[in-house]
């Protein structure tokens, strides 16, 4: 069964550094998403991406964040200057149409 994959599984970085989280969505899906989950809390929407542009973004997704689909398979989330409060699990998801979203295993980001 096709799955969303994410790399790395764990990323440790220093505050102020840039990080890029990578995702490979399910191949025939058209919609792509990033969510985050701070330890022990609920999953929060960050951004959705369709047809090579951002469809919707939350207030969390400020100018420090950007997304890109650099080729036909990868979908990336970049955080330009990480803060301590960016420490969280970041989940990529994809969907064939707007409704049913399939989540990847996540990347744990630790900002020191």
């Amino acid at each position, binding site marked *: 069964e096709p799955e969303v994959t994410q790399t790395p599984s764990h990323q440790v970085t220093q505050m102020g550094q840039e990080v890029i989280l990578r995702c490979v969505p399910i191949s025939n899906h058209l919609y792509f*998403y990033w*969510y985050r989950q701070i330890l022990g809390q*609920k*999953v929060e*929407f960050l951004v*959705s991406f369709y047809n090579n542009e951002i469809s919707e973004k939350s207030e969390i997704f400020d100018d420090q964040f950007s997304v890109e689909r650099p080729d036909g398979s990868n979908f990336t989330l970049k955080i330009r200057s990480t803060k301590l409060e960016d420490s969280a699990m970041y989940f990529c998801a994809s969907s064939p149409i*707007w409704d*049913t*979203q399939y989540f990847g295993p996540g990347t744990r980001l630790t900002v020191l």
Partner: protein
Amino acid sequence: QQQVKQSPQSLIVQKGGIPIINCAYENTAFDYFPWYQQFPGKGPALLIAIRPDVSEKKEGRFTISFNKSAKQFSLHIMDSQPGDSATYFCAASRVGTYKYIFGTGTRLKVLA
């Protein structure tokens, strides 16, 4: 208006019991309600989803009950097993948007 309230926060049942997890929403524009199961260190996995034109949907041991007038929906797990021990999230979404609003999660423990 954008919140989804989930209860209880945690739940312990004996094997074979029927845990019930409840969610409530305010925004009547929501029209898609998925449930996700999450094991520690893993991404959320879609369990079952419902739209408001039906009052109940069953898939295997998992049943969603939906009460449109009360703006509530519930997940029932029949004949629960220790392997069902996980965190369960409800979510809501609506046509024309590209994000899920997640509930706060319920940590379920099924005792052997």
